């Protein structure tokens, strides 16, 4: 993949300028029954190269926040910047990965992966695509249609589709939520490996506490109605993290700790590291 050296410890990039700044993001939806307060004054720095998980119950505005970060949604108030650029529309440096893979069912795998190039009116980077397909073990499946592939394969294809245009920031919206537990573990390992190999910044939305702890450098917990940041946890477990750490007592302790903070609506001070 990209020639970025492997890194081992998270959080070492504190001194660099943040990759993305979210400042006072507030969002109201106008619906037929009145306005819904989806985001309330959310401020957050996404560090360059970090793996950030946003965790929260459904309806807490995490998808709204991610869509705004991807430039798909406007904010009612506040702003989101990528470096110095204000995000008001989709940005070529940002790629999104959606729930349920979101492949186009009328296109085969090759045509699905070529979609971003088509939309950007650029020649297809077949070399990069082939390399990515081999990396995620989808080499040779290019002529298959989405319905012929398993859920895990579909989501791997959608990861290839997003990486094919070489974005520096990946926004993932509960990508593995619909997968069975085993496939989910596999995908979590894969995305960790890809993150370590490529040095991309990843913002990953999930409602699974253990998935968040397994993947993240930092876990941002959001509370619902209106969506705001309840707490932020640093996760300093060394990488690469094997799947079986999820059964270790200290891992479970972290899960319980975050769960307790959600249950009590308590907000421990930001950046609290638990070891």
């Amino acid at each position, binding site marked *: 993949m990209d020639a970025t050296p492997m890194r081992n410890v998270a959080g070492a990039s504190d001194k660099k300028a943040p990759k993305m700044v979210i400042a006072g993001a507030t969002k109201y*939806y*106008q*619906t037929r029954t009145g306005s*819904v307060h*989806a985001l309330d004054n959310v401020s957050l720095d996404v560090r360059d190269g970090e793996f950030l998980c946003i965790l929260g119950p459904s309806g807490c505005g995490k*998808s*709204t926040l*991610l*869509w705004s970060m*991807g*430039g*798909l*949604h*406007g904010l009612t108030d506040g702003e989101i910047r990528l470096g110095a650029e204000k995000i*008001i*529309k*989709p940005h*070529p440096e*940002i*790629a*999104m990965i*959606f*729930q*349920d*893979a*979101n492949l*186009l*069912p*009328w296109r085969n795998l090759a045509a699905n992966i070529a*979609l*971003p190039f*088509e*939309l*950007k009116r650029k020649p297809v980077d077949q070399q990069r695509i082939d390399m990515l397909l081999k990396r995620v073990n989808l080499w040779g499946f290019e002529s298959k*249609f*989405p*319905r012929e*592939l*398993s*859920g895990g394969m*579909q*989501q791997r294809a959608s990861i290839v589709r997003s990486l094919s*245009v070489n974005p520096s920031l990946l926004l993932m*919206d509960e990508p593995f*939520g*619909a*997968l069975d537990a085993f496939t989910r573990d596999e995908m979590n390992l894969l995305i960790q490996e890809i993150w370590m190999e490529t040095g991309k910044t990843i913002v990953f939305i999930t409602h699974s506490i253990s998935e968040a702890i397994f993947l993240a450098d930092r876990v941002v917990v959001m509370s619902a109605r209106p969506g705001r940041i309840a707490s932020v946890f640093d996760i300093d477990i060394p990488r690469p993290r094997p799947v079986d750490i999820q059964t270790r007592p200290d891992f479970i302790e972290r899960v319980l700790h975050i769960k307790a903070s959600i249950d009590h609506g308590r907000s421990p001070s930001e950046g609290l590291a638990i070891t």
Partner: protein
Amino acid sequence: MDKALGDKIPEFNRKKAGGGGDGVGLSGTSLGLGDHRTKLETLTIILVAVVIIGGAELLLKWFGVPQYVLPTPSLIIMALFTEWGFIWPHLLVTLYELLVGFAIGASIGFVLAAVITQFPFVEKIVTPYILLLVTTPMLALVPLLILKLGFGSEPRIIAVALASGPMVMINSATGFRRVDLAKIALARSFGASTFQIFTKIRIPMAMPMIIVGLMVGSIFGLLTTVGAEMVGGAEGLGNRLTYYSALIRMPQFFAIILILAIIGISIYVLFYWIGKKWASWET
């Protein structure tokens, strides 16, 4: 920001991964030209056809049914060959009227559907009138059109366009209304323009219903063509039906019906294959 995504809350109905469509498909209209026919099935189909046609032949002869009541299959086939020289110019007229009328009606219907579905307000205003066009038999207008335009092809072409256009439109509109927010968001996230979203997402997504509309519309077009030819003028297969029945030349009359049946079946088969090629992802 984005007109299509607008201010919609990013929640889509979660389908199972691998998700099939929402059940709108060609299956609704298809009588199923079975895909995987075994040798035995093919043999049985041929056998049944032979028994029915041969049986009709024998029974009609056995009971001495006069040919002005019901001609035997062999007489019909003979009439088709002996009369072919007189019939084929009329066949061409009918096909010409059908094709031109359908092309006009279908294009207008398709464009109207694509445009109107983008503006819910306009759609609400226009839909009742389209329904009126769908439900009112356009044949009723033919005498009026003949009065204005004479006995040429024009009034019939207009009637065909009026009959098939609304069918194409109403089905295509159903297709275009099936918005999948996630797929539009996907295209938009890669920087797609509104036009690209239309050509790369909306049209392919509506394709199964567009094909259904074209199939139903062309069958309606065929009905209207033949009907309009029976009402007035001196050409076309519809005219031949009235001509031969007036002369009580029943074998020739049934030969025309046979040709019409073949045209109808061909239309069905054509759109069945188009559907298999362009919309098979949905089933």
